[in-house]
């Protein structure tokens, strides 16, 4: 999962560890999120000191593993010094920042009201036991309000961020702007329906 806000150096990223039993289930959704955000999917989880370039952007980050856990790897991303006309020395203007995620929920919107929405939330991808909550739309970025619809999915993380010697708590709700259903997927579904009839006698 990734969240990004402007300016680009306020970028933090967490990866789902590939050793989770249900990781293969998660990959398609996450992959599409990355794709839709026109950010590149990280090619590997060992990002220690690896630099990668975000697709369609010129921003570059140096990443450093801060915390590795069974569910999440927290990665510290530091923006590379931007070259200016004055050609500053390497390292000038570099701001170190890292985030520690204390809680992460996945959510599905049940219904939306004028100023809030109600959602089911669950940890990881185990949707039992699920929880539910009512969240103010103020907690969602304005440009994402159009995604707050029944069936809309989001990720919600709570943690703290250490940047330049200061520490602050944060809560970020990020709605997935998933790609639309494709002709091929709908065609595959028709093929699957035929197989269901034949193999399971569901007809």
């Amino acid at each position, binding site marked *: 999962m990734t969240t990004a806000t402007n300016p680009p150096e306020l970028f933090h990223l967490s990866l789902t560890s590939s050793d989770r039993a249900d990781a293969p*289930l*998660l990959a*398609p*959704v996450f992959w599409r999120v990355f794709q839709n955000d026109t950010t590149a999917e990280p090619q590997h989880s060992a990002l220690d000191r690896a630099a990668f370039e975000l697709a369609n952007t010129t921003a570059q980050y140096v990443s450093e593993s801060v915390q590795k856990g069974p569910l999440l790897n927290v990665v510290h991303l530091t923006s590379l010094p931007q070259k200016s006309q004055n050609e500053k020395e390497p390292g000038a203007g570099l701001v170190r920042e890292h985030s520690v995620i*204390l*809680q992460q929920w*996945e959510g*599905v919107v*049940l*219904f939306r009201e004028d100023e809030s929405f*109600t959602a*089911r*939330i669950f940890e990881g*991808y185990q*949707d*039992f*036991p*699920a*929880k*539910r*909550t*009512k*969240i*103010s739309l103020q*907690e969602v970025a304005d440009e994402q309000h159009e995604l707050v*619809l*029944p*069936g*809309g*999915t989001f990720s919600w993380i*709570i*943690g*703290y961020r250490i940047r330049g010697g200061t520490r602050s*708590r944060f*809560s970020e709700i990020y709605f997935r702007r*998933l*790609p*639309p*259903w*494709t*002709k091929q*997927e*709908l065609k*595959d*579904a*028709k*093929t*699957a*329906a035929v*197989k*269901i*009839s034949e*193999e*399971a*006698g*569901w*007809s």
Partner: protein
Amino acid sequence: VRKLAGPDLSIPPRSDEVEISVFGPGFGESIVVHLTGGEWIVVDSCLNAQTKEPAALDYLQKIGIDPATAVRFVISSHWHDDHIRGIGKVFEKCESARFVCAHGLEITQFKELIGLYSRYFPVGGSGIREFTKVLSILKARRKTDSGFGPDFVSEGTMLYQRDPNARIFVKVLSPSSAAYLVSLARFSESLLPKEGQARSAVPYLEPNDLAIVLTVKVEDARFLLGADLEEQGKADLGWQAILDKFAHTDTAHQGFKIPHHGSVTGHHKEVWPKLMNEEAWTVLTPYIKGKKPLPEKTDVERITAYCRYSYITAQRAITRYRPPDSVVQRQLREMGISIFEESSKQGQVRLRKSVSQSNSDWTVEMFGDACDLSDLLQSAT
């Protein structure tokens, strides 16, 4: 109805005792029925919040029943998350059972929906996942001689009849023929996405016209399992359709699993005078989904006004959840956000009646968080 003192969960019913046990946490419902003679049916599934196992299997195991041989039917009354969670495992363990679902789910659009979401949208609901598991079991069983496809049932289907004199049977009262047509249109218009449409979790299909309502008769015992069937005030749909077709033949039920968690949307005022016995008992399960937990106070007042013996499987549909991390707690507090758990409280209401003695009483036992429905009114005051 006689309330047993010192209930003991582990005592199985005698061979001549009919039993209906209703399980329900804050989110979910499951029912097991003993049809006497060691034959059982399971209607819907929910998970035990502690063991994370299907409540029906947990219970059968506790009373020493082998689901592989004893369960005749596993019935999915409808495919909402709160009625289907764990039904794949239930069907897997009930090796000799047939799988039953509503006429209407055999349509191509439903199969396409399963094919689409099981492959391309693996989060956000258990309905598709459970049906996918059921399909894989059906597929495996079809490779053996004992394999059958599912039974698609609708109004009037005699699902089970033990004897030619119809002393013991399970009959389907819903869904109606009209419900099939309405749902077919809904599947095409609302559920199955179209090319270019924004991807989201499977939308909730409401109102639920395709719910399977059952009337169960075992000798002189008779009860009605109302699933989540709602009433919309339309002829040929919901409870009106049942009243129109069965009010003259399927009457005098001694018990009623109240539909739709006691919501007024599942209430039809003619059901009580036309289908129920005056001294009937009722059981319901709580639910949180919408803006208010069910049953609401007005629902409890309405139901308890109709009958003296009303029970609910869990006192509270929701309980407050506190995240373990104090920083997270502080953040939520500052945001003014409360989080509630769906399934932390679970209970069971068990009713039994001997059918070898005429006019024997029903006995009721309550386990876990179950209580008299009227207790909810007292706790609210």
